């Protein structure tokens, strides 16, 4: 990567500050161009690939129609359950396979990459894409490939194959011993196995449902339990590794699973395509995928209005009402979509009795965005289901430029202390309070305690000096 553009030189759509852009470009190159990776990169990649290749080989044999398929599968499961990718065991084991009932059902259709003429409805399955040539003669390899390629599991153990009926089955997948079991449901269609959905114990999606036609952005809701409440959402096009969209929603960080709702944006395709929605949670320790709920959807070309990140022209949004001698128009700050980095202003009219203007404004903030505003993409931690807004605010004092805002501890009790929640609450309160020139910083208390807020927000202080 060399410096294609001379510093300060023209570039298409260069933003309005070429000088800063040039400084940035120079600094990035000065820093990065000196970095030389260690020489063992390829070797490391191959080493790590090798521990996987055995499994892929096993899959190839299966797909190639080697007899006694289930025996190998059973061994794969055993080897993995034993916690290792031990090539030797697997290879040796494959020569001493046993035949089980499963084998008789899986060996008959031994076509691999030959073309497949029977139509399978691409909107009814999540994987593999009926339009490409990849086919699975047995459910376990299909489940494994789905878990790694689509759901993003890196380490996995296949569990029991439930044998509910001849043409439907379930395979469980776990990332680690004792970890949550994601259940992958498969159906046999036209003589090969397709994944129709996966279900994670801690992620329940109520909206949208499987098979729905989606437009971007779309609304999603359900219940989830996850580290910091965070559930990653991926919008995938069937058969493509690149997500068309990513986002996240926040459920509960502590049991039981709590409700989530949010908007997810994706890049609309040129024509409707089969897609897959993946909701997954990651491990706090190593970031690996722990569990995933997923199902097929239809991604339409439709794009709804403006991007939610913009949430319209915010300076004019909201219901300003009328500024009268008794009323004053103020701003309350909420978020837009799932972007935690930006807050946007909406107007509110509050009583203008001067000493209480900040109290009234914070009260308006606690009431949250209206339904119409939520539909337009505004999001917030408010309103919190913790009683009437007036009961959620104990009081506000301004002293020496610092506004001390004493919130009800019930707000804390209702909100998981996920980083998304704490960041959202801090920045919304801060920006709303500092619209007044008399306020430069904010102290947030819960039931009068600075320590209580600091603890909940996992910071050193309850004093907030920047958004």
């Amino acid at each position, binding site marked *: *990567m060399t410096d294609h553009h001379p510093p300060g030189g023209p570039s*298409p*759509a260069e*933003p309005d*500050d070429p000088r*800063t852009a040039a*400084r*940035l*470009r*120079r*600094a*990035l*190159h*000065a*820093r*990065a161009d*000196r*970095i*030389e*990776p260690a020489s063992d*990169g*390829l070797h*490391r*990649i*191959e*080493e*790590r*690939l090798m521990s*996987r*290749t*055995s499994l*892929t080989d096993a*899959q190839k044999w299966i797909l190639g129609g080697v007899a006694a398929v289930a025996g190998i599968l059973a061994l794969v499961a055993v080897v993995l359950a034993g916690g290792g990718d031990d*090539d030797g065991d697997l*290879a040796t084991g*494959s*020569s001493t396979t046993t035949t089980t009932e499963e084998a008789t059902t899986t060996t008959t259709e031994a076509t691999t990459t030959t073309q497949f003429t029977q139509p399978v409805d691409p909107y009814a399955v999540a994987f*593999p894409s009926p339009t*490409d040539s*990849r086919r699975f003669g047995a459910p376990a390899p299909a489940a494994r490939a789905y878990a790694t*390629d689509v759901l993003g599991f890196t380490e996995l153990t296949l569990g029991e194959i439930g044998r509910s009926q001849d043409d439907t089955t379930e395979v469980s997948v776990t990332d680690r011993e004792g970890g949550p079991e994601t259940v992958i449901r498969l159906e046999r269609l036209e003589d090969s196995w397709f994944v129709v959905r996966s279900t994670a114990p801690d992620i329940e999606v109520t909206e949208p449902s499987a098979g729905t036609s989606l437009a971007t952005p779309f609304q999603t809701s359900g219940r989830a339990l996850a580290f910091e409440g965070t559930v990653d959402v991926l*919008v995938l096009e069937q058969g493509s*590794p*690149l997500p068309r*969209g*990513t986002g996240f929603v926040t459920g509960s960080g502590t049991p039981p699973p709590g409700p989530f709702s949010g908007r997810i*944006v*994706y*890049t609309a395709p040129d024509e409707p395509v089969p897609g897959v929605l993946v909701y997954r949670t990651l491990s706090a320790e*190593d*970031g690996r995928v722990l569990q995933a709920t997923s199902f097929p959807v239809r991604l339409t070309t439709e794009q709804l209005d403006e*991007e939610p*990140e*913009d949430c319209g022209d915010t300076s004019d949004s909201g219901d300003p009402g009328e500024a009268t001698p008794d009323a004053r128009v103020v701003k309350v700050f909420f978020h837009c979509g799932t972007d935690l*980095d*930006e807050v946007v202003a909406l107007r509110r009219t509050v009583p203008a009795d001067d000493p209480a203007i900040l109290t009234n404004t914070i009260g308006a903030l606690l009431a949250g965005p209206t339904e119409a505003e939520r539909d337009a993409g505004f999001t917030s931690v408010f309103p919190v289901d913790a009683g009437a807004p007036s009961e959620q605010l104990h009081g506000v004092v301004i002293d020496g430029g610092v506004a001390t805002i004493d919130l009800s501890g019930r707000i804390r009790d209702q909100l998981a202390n996920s*980083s998304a929640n704490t960041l959202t609450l801090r920045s919304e309160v801060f920006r709303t309070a500092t619209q007044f020139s008399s306020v430069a910083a904010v102290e947030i208390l819960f039931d009068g305690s600075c320590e209580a807020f600091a603890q909940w927000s*996992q*910071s*050193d202080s309850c004093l907030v000096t920047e958004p």
Partner: protein
Amino acid sequence: MATMAPIEQRADPWLVELYRSHYRDLVRLAALLVDDRGLAEEIVQDAFVSVARRRMQVALDDEQATPAYLRSAVMNGARSALRRRAVRRRHLRSVEPPPIAPGADREALADAETRHVLIALHRLPTRQREVLVLRYYADLTEAEIATTLGISAGSVKTHAHRGLAALAQHLEAE
């Protein structure tokens, strides 16, 4: 079938070529985001493992798709790494972490101007930083950045604009 071929015989020319063409650039890109060469290498290796595994299973030989996929995987990997780092920091309850990690290559930061700009860059929100690095280091177009990050081209424009403005502000303030 009972024995595995040694690694050399299985070395995939496709992978070797992909490594030669992209590995170093991607490590540099990742290093700008996580500020730690070792970690950057791990992130890029993860991306290669993932793309190679996919190739074994699906036809992923579109010349455009592969580098784009690698880049996406690297950005995601860097973001997860930063998130994990942030979580660790919060648990340690340390005050205002230094913007440049101790693992950074000190000599590369010798230049005061460079350091100044990079510190300001690391104060920006993640998304803005990503967009700026892809734009001003990797020289990607808005459309390419949008694909890489899985966001709309409009958002790319917004993030680039706001990011650069915020960067200028940080630089002026110091």
